[in-house]
């Protein structure tokens, strides 16, 4: 962590404004402060503070980002997010009651109600994702003009669900085409003032760039799982399960379960390891492809985000996470010692159990929040910075003659996304 922090020296010795690029001016230390304070307040308010924290984070990221010499601005407020969330809850409660009651009913409706609820909630989730994007865009100001988004959110939801189903069925092979199609939909409906955006990234190109990664990560997994399933004697297995009894384990072994388990564990282990090692490559590739596909009128974007930079970001995160892990291990040891001491001091009773339960859950939450904070302060911030600083704009004259258009939209989409846990806030 003692490597030179480029942010600290920045404001004093700022380089000349890049006219055809972007830069990020935020100080990492200020972001750390914002996030740690926010994490503490999230903890004591059981999450109510999240609207304010999300707004602070966005304001920090947006307002410190400069594109072609002028800064972005985020003008959303926590109050809007809170209101949007409350409206979303009011919309979701009757829906949940209907699902709850139909699950208790009889006949085909209750049999299907689980599946139906899943489909409706998935659609609603993607609907919310699109609407949340609209909220964020209409709160993004550049040169005194806001962005906005058109397009029917339900259409986006149907397309997104279709593509996610395709991705699942092709074990990920459809991902580039899904991304290209959905990004085309989003950008076609994205406007800076009256300047319409579009997306020109090609799914086929991303496919051929990424297919090697897919072969390394996913193919062994599929192959291993198929081999494992094939090596099981299914009739013997179902026989063993049906008969039950004490010697069920030995008969399970007879069904070829042990070699199957070994193959499955090996292939899963390989895929997890490969994924962990290659994820930065994948992320850099997709980010580069996405940014280079962005167009606004005559403005074109090209990105030179290097894979090495993304690796450096993740390595730094791993290093800080490791140090934090040691600190937490010491903290956990102390917490257990305290819990043990309490048991001795108070004896076994309701109060001791309550205190140790609170201690246990409390320390878990502290650790989870701490890791989320570290991730945001390292990976999220540096990826944001690296992405913006990797871009090269051409045709920036297009940005000089844009007329204001579009109006601020409500934050109900953000609220829905938050309530449905689809990465709203």
């Amino acid at each position, binding site marked *: 962590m003692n490597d030179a922090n480029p942010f600290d020296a920045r404001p004093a010795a700022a380089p000349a404004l890049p006219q055809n690029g972007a830069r990020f001016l935020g100080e990492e230390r200020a972001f750390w402060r914002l996030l740690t304070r926010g994490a503490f307040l999230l903890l004591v308010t059981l999450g109510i503070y999240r609207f304010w924290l999300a707004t602070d984070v966005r304001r920090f990221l947006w*307002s410190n980002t400069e594109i072609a010499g002028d800064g972005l601005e985020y003008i959303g407020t926590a109050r809007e997010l809170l209101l949007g969330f409350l409206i979303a809850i009011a919309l979701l409660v009757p829906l949940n009651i209907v699902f709850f009651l139909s699950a208790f009913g009889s006949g085909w409706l209750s049999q299907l109600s689980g599946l139906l609820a899943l489909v409706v909630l998935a659609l609603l989730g993607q609907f919310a994702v699109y609407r949340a994007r609209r909220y964020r865009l209409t709160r993004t100001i550049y040169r005194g003009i806001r962005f906005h988004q058109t397009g029917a959110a339900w259409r986006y939801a149907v397309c997104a669900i279709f593509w996610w189903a395709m991705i699942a069925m092709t074990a990920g092979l459809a991902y580039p085409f899904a991304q290209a199609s959905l990004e085309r939909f989003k950008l076609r409906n994205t406007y800076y003032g009256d300047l319409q955006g579009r997306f020109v990234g090609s799914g086929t190109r991303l496919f051929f760039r990424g297919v090697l990664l897919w072969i390394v990560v996913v193919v062994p997994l599929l192959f291993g799982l198929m081999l494992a399933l094939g090596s099981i004697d299914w009739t013997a297995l179902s026989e063993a399960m049906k008969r*039950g009894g004490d010697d069920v384990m030995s008969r399970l072994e007879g069904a070829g379960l042990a070699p199957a388990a070994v193959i499955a564990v090996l292939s899963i282990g390989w895929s997890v390891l490969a994924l962990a090692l290659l994820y930065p490559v994948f992320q850099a590739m997709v980010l580069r492809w996405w940014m280079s596909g962005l167009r606004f009128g005559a403005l074109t974007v090209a990105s030179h985000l290097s894979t090495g930079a993304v690796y450096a970001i993740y390595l730094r995160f791993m290093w800080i996470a490791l140090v934090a892990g040691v600190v937490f291990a010491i903290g956990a040891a102390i917490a257990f010692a305290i819990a043990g001491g309490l048991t001795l001091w108070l004896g076994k009773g309701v109060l001791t*159990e309550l205190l140790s339960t609170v201690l246990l859950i409390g320390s878990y939450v502290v650790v989870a929040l701490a890791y989320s904070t570290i991730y945001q302060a390292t990976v999220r911030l540096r990826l944001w910075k690296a992405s913006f600083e990797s871009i090269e704009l051409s045709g920036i004259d297009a940005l000089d003659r844009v007329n204001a258009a579009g109006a601020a939209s409500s934050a109900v989409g953000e609220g829905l996304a938050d309530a449905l846990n689809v990465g709203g806030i």
Partner: protein
Amino acid sequence: MATAGTGIFFDGATSARRPVLVELSPEGLVVRDPQEHAMLVRWPYNELDHLAAPHGLLRLGRAGAPRLARLEVRDPALIAAIDDASVPVDRSGAAERRGRTKVIVWSLVATVSLLLAAVFGVPALADKLAPLIPLRAERWLGEAVDMQARRMLDKGDASRPFECGNAEGRAALANLMAKLEVAATLPIPLEIKVVRRSEPNAIALPGGHIYVFEGLVEKSETPDELAGVIAHEIGHVAHRDGTRSILQSAGLSFLFGMLLGDFVGGGAVVIGARAVLQSSYSRDVESAADRYGVDLMTRAGGDPRALGAVLNRIAGTTHPGVEILRDHPDTKARVAVINTLAPASQPARPILEAEEWRALKRICTAR
């Protein structure tokens, strides 16, 4: 003190970037074209909107204006002068901090109030609502819960049916239930089944369904012991505890699942808080069912202390789990309460004849 300087102006109608002259006039901030000196806008000081910007840049807008016109100033002396002249311009961040402190205080108040609602409000509401639910609805709910419970309890052992019951055993159980039901006078009929589960336990579902586990029949040494546990379960039916617990769980799901806890690690808080709260609700519920069981056994002519005896025996065999997360209050305390509640005189005869009790003991073993 600077009263004029330069800045960058965006008029909010187009994206054109305009270098401008900025003047501090008595009526407000005046923005002028640098060549022709024509006034572009005049913003009153108290209507200035101080917007987020990187360090060293003052970005201003006009509060409440339909257009998003922006003025950007980099000259430190001019920034200081504007800050002095305008109340909303808050370079030190003091006003922002005051506002944020208020938000934090109110969020804490809201958190405490929602927690109080979870601890006191939800059980109180469930107590009030449960008696209002019509019996027909409760039976309908019972059918649905019954199906789910059976699916969960039934291990699917094909060689033996899930429900125990030879003719003699069933007759003995029916006789025992008849005695208890006559004494209980419930508005809904009870449906009792002995099922193949080795745990010494019994459960009551909404709508009068009671499941007695095979393990309990084995552990019971007298008919009164088994009857005592069933009487306790009838207490749950009479108090409509199943319906109440469904209402409570729905209320807690709403409070914790929807309003609170939506942050990283929040899931653990939700699960933990629900477990602690629900078990704290159920302590009172179990004590009430114990009282009911003692009363019912007395009226039915059985031995109310037998419940305590079988509880002691069962507690000796099960693992002492995490106390707060366990549904039933401390066994010793329960047995003590049962014994004080029970009348001094003991019935002369067991609740079932020896012959019938033998049949009931064999309900799961004999064909």
